[in-house]
């Protein structure tokens, strides 16, 4: 019996454990296994294997019985999931159901979750803009949150490292506020987008219109073919999972790559309860897992642990990791854990029409759009609010059919495609300021169906956000009007925080253990063999879609961790 226990414990012992298999967990797994570490990857949801588990990926539009709309009963029962633009008949199975995964909204917050192998990497918008030095310098210059312990130069080589493997399309624009990366052939800007780019360049010296940098393979390199991935086919139904592997997801890329090393064990249906702290060794020894099917608790052990559960769940796991040494959550002597959560302000849009280029249109489809890098308060403070916003920008040639009348005349009208004006649109992506009062915490009594404490989320907008919404609407409306666009309209959709799906922070990086949880290597200041490399680690949010930065932080932290292990420092 004793021997059996020893063997059993041995069988549950690895060199490394990765908690989560989304964008950042996939990268941690890839890098750890490539460096030869026997790695256990824990995923709370089911397995989703590339291609095999994309059941809707090749369905034609008419094969969806409600043409992508979801039944009212489902929408009514899942107001949180249904608030996401990507929640539809073809993709609903990649979203967590509201009632199966409850949490407490102290303030309204849409917590959009993808509980399966690959996480939200199947559903993401695939925009991959680098941060610039101005973004990392923000908190120190403007005196909010804490200073970032790293700068652009620390992360730049790791951006290159992940870009080459993931496959990023983009144009080398030479803009110092949005550094160029390792780009594959860029997508086209269309005629009206190019026209707007020229108009804006004439009017404003610091404002640029560029094609987005996005995780799509436009020009496959050997490293992509080696992953079994092919050129993006412009289907623009990415949220179903891509049988070509045309866009980057953990499922198409990092997870099978890690599997191929022979060093990865993937365990789906594994809800991580907590990280085990060994009081004698003064470090983490493993994790406690609730098997999602049997609800039984199990333990797994490893020398190092990468926490990649997605921002708020990584907070939850640390807050729930209670020991004599850490009664308030692992590594949380400072009391900062769970606090300074921030997100991206996506509330406002500006739309308009353009009456030029009426003899031109576009051909095919584009899984990308134009992008306006942040231009407010970049070099110095110039407005009555802190920081700024980036914006998406796109133009489309409107087409329509004559829907008037009934009978044969209606049928004839429907058979003929007519061309209208071009429509133009933009949406804001605003930086929000991390504050102590925007926090997550464990509820003291209520539990979720897995027996985990429910997460209380208390995250809201503030006056800075209101001013930024107003400024975005004014500035982009002015840019549209000066370009000659007509019917320019701005709109504040008042969407809830969280609906941007860019929640960050709570386990922030910093220089001082008294005011931060993680050091410059994403390593817990007070528990050195635990690394957090997802959105939870973010000191501030800047404006860029964050996934590329999580990938780079993960690869960089693994490199450091493995070097430290080899030097016997961990």
């Amino acid at each position, binding site marked *: 019996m004793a021997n059996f226990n020893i063997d059993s414990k041995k069988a549950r012992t690895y060199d490394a454990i990765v908690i989560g298999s989304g964008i950042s967990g996939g990268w941690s797994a890839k890098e750890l296994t490539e460096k030869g570490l026997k790695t256990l990857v824990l995923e709370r949801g*089911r397995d989703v294997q590339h291609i095999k*588990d994309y059941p*809707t990926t090749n369905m034609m539009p008419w094969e969806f*019985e409600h*043409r992508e709309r979801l039944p009212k009963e489902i929408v009514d029962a899942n107001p949180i999931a249904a608030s996401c633009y990507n929640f539809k008949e073809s993709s609903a199975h990649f979203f967590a159901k509201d009632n199966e995964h409850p949490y407490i909204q102290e303030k309204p917050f849409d917590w959009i979750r993808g509980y399966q192998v690959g996480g939200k990497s199947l559903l993401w918008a695939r925009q991959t803009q680098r941060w610039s030095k101005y973004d990392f310098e923000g908190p120190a210059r403007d005196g909010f949150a804490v200073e970032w312990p790293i700068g652009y130069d620390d992360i730049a080589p790791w951006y290159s490292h992940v870009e080459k493997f993931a496959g990023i399309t983009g144009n080398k624009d030479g803009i110092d506020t949005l550094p160029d990366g390792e780009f594959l052939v860029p997508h*086209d800007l269309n005629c009206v987008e190019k026209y707007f780019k020229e108009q804006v360049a004439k009017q404003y010296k610091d404002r640029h219109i560029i094609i987005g940098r996005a995780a799509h393979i436009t020009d496959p390199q050997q490293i992509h073919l080696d992953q079994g991935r092919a050129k993006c086919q412009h289907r623009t139904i990415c949220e179903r999972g891509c049988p070509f592997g045309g866009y980057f997801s953990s499922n198409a890329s990092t997870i099978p790559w890690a599997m191929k090393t022979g060093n990865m064990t993937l365990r789906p249906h594994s809800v991580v309860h907590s990280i085990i702290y060994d009081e004698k060794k003064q470090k983490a020894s493993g994790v406690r897992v609730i098997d999602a099917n049997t609800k039984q608790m199990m333990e797994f052990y490893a020398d190092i642990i990468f926490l990649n559960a997605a921002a708020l769940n990584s907070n939850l796991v640390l807050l729930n990791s209670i020991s004599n040494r850490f009664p308030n959550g692992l590594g949380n002597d400072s009391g900062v854990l769970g606090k300074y959560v921030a997100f991206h302000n996506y509330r406002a849009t500006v739309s308009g029409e353009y009456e030029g280029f009426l003899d031109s249109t576009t051909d095919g489809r584009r899984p990308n759009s134009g992008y306006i890098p942040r231009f407010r308060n970049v070099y110095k403070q110039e407005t009555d609010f802190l920081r700024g916003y980036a914006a998406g920008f796109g133009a489309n040639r409107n087409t329509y059919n004559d829907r008037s009348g009934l*009978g044969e005349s*209606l*049928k004839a009208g429907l058979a003929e495609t007519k061309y209208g004006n071009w429509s133009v649109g933009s949406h804001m992506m605003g930086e929000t300021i991390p504050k102590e009062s925007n926090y997550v915490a464990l509820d003291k009594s209520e539990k979720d169906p897995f027996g985990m404490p429910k997460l209380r989320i208390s995250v809201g907008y503030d006056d800075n956000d209101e001013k930024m919404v107003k400024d975005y609407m004014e500035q982009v409306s002015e840019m549209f009007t000066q370009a000659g666009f007509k019917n320019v309209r701005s709109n504040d959709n008042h969407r809830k925080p969280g609906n941007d799906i860019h929640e960050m922070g709570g386990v922030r990086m910093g220089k001082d253990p008294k005011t931060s949880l993680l050091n410059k290597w994403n390593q817990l200041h007070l528990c050195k063999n635990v690394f957090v490399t997802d959105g939870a680690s973010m000191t501030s949010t800047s404006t860029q879609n964050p996934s590329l930065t999580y990938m780079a932080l993960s690869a960089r932290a693994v490199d450091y961790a493995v070097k430290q292990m080899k030097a016997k420092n961990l």
Partner: protein
Amino acid sequence: MERRVALKSMAVAMGAMAGLPSWASGWSKSVVAKGGLLSADQSKNLTMIVETIIPKTDTPGAGELGVGDFVQKMVKDCYDSKAQAGLSSGISNIDEQSVQRFGKSYADASKEQRLQLLQDIEKGSDAAQKAFFSMVKNLTIQGYMTSEYVMTNITHYEMIPARYHGCVPVKKG
């Protein structure tokens, strides 16, 4: 190499299409109650209505393309109870009007009479009947335009465009 990988991927994906696993269909099939919203007669009349809105010419009409069933399914699964009641009473109302005006049920009325009746509703002043008809017309257009026949033979939907050109001349005619 690239093409070979893609084709292999496609082949595997095609195999996966045969049936949706339970986790994928769990969102809709098990949740939404089976059975129709309308009686057999009402269903038949709805098919007559959608066929009148978009009739058979040298190409199939909405009735033949199954758009009646699509309209009923959408209203049953995706609309509120008020819209559902409106669909049922709206169809009955049309049948009654047909008897009053032409002495024949809607199903037995002539093609011209069926069209005349719908045109009068669309231009008329009965708000409830107009709301009903607007819903049915919009869903009929949606069901027709997203039918396999129309997307394949008329609008030529491309599942895999494999390109984006940002500025091309508008095709004439």
